[in-house]
């Protein structure tokens, strides 16, 4: 049920539970995989299949970030891209027997949401300066200050609980079905879980991007150019 309560072994008296262990598995997977692929990069059209895969992933993420923020994706790519890759790999590995996805634990998702919560003011202050960022909380009127602060907190909570609820429900339903149904049904649910896992990773990354972008762009009343939509305003809470 909860990977936090599955203690695998004790490291100098510190319990190592499944969440921590599999988080490290995912991190090692990502780091070693990236290192292996980027050891021999080629500039020409002749490239290895793995480099091709990584290039598709990275350019895809850059395009998405550029579309959401309408800015250069360079600054945001490390943070948002890491979030997406970590969540996606962790959710996709859930089909491996014996793998407890770390995102199926509220501890992991809360930590990721806290990272976004901290990143929003960091990017905002870096882009706009401290006072301009703080002044955003007084938009549109100073009366909205408490609601803006509450919205900041509640959307972080929603970010954590959404990912946790989706992944945990997939794992729980899979386990229950394994107990009552033959081979066929659980496999179908696992396939559905792969889809939801990837969509949830995408949603988490896009929402993080939208929150950061809204803090990092000054809300000047710009007249939208012809054929160009205004920058997306993030909804509060949700």
């Amino acid at each position, binding site marked *: *049920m909860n990977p936090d309560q599955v203690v695998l072994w004790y490291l100098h008296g510190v319990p190592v539970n499944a969440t921590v262990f599999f988080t490290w598995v995912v991190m090692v997977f990502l780091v070693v995989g990236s290192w292996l692929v980027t050891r021999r990069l080629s500039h020409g059209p002749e490239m290895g299949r793995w480099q091709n895969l990584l290039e598709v992933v990275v350019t895809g993420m850059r395009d*998405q970030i550029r*579309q*959401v923020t309408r800015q250069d994706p360079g600054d945001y790519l490390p943070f948002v891209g890491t979030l997406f890759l970590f969540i996606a790999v962790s959710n996709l590995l859930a089909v491996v027997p014996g793998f407890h996805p770390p995102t199926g634990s509220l501890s992991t998702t809360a930590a990721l949401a806290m990272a976004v919560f901290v990143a929003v003011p960091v990017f905002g202050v870096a882009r706009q300066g401290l006072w301009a960022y703080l002044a955003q909380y007084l938009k549109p009127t100073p009366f909205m200050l408490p609601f803006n602060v509450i919205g900041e907190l509640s959307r972080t909570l*929603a970010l954590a*609980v*959404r990912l*946790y*609820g*989706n992944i*945990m*429900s997939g794992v*729980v339903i899979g386990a229950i079905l394994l107990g009552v149904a033959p081979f066929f049904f659980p496999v179908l649910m696992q396939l559905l879980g792969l889809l939801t896992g990837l*969509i*949830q990773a*995408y*949603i988490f990354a*896009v*929402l993080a991007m*939208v929150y950061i972008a809204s803090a990092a762009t000054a809300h000047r009343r710009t007249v939208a150019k012809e054929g160009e*939509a205004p920058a*997306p305003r993030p*909804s509060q809470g*949700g």
Partner: protein
Amino acid sequence: MDNLGLVAAVSIAVSGLTIAVGSIGPALGEGRAVAQALGAIAQQPDEANTITRTLFVGLAMVESTAIYCFVVAMILIFANPFWDYFLSRAGG
């Protein structure tokens, strides 16, 4: 029925009710959203990327209400504080 049985019965019944009632609204809303998005994509296939992304983000927002209900149901069944309290009172 003693306290323990009462807490168990009420928890199970209410958790079922929670997920049953709580998933109606999000289901209807998401169905509407998908239908509208399909219509929009059919009218403007060029904008499919933007529409799809906005649809997914919106669906996630709607989805979270159902997920709150799901989490409450899970808490009632698997991590019920009242159950633990009465269990300790009963010397279990």
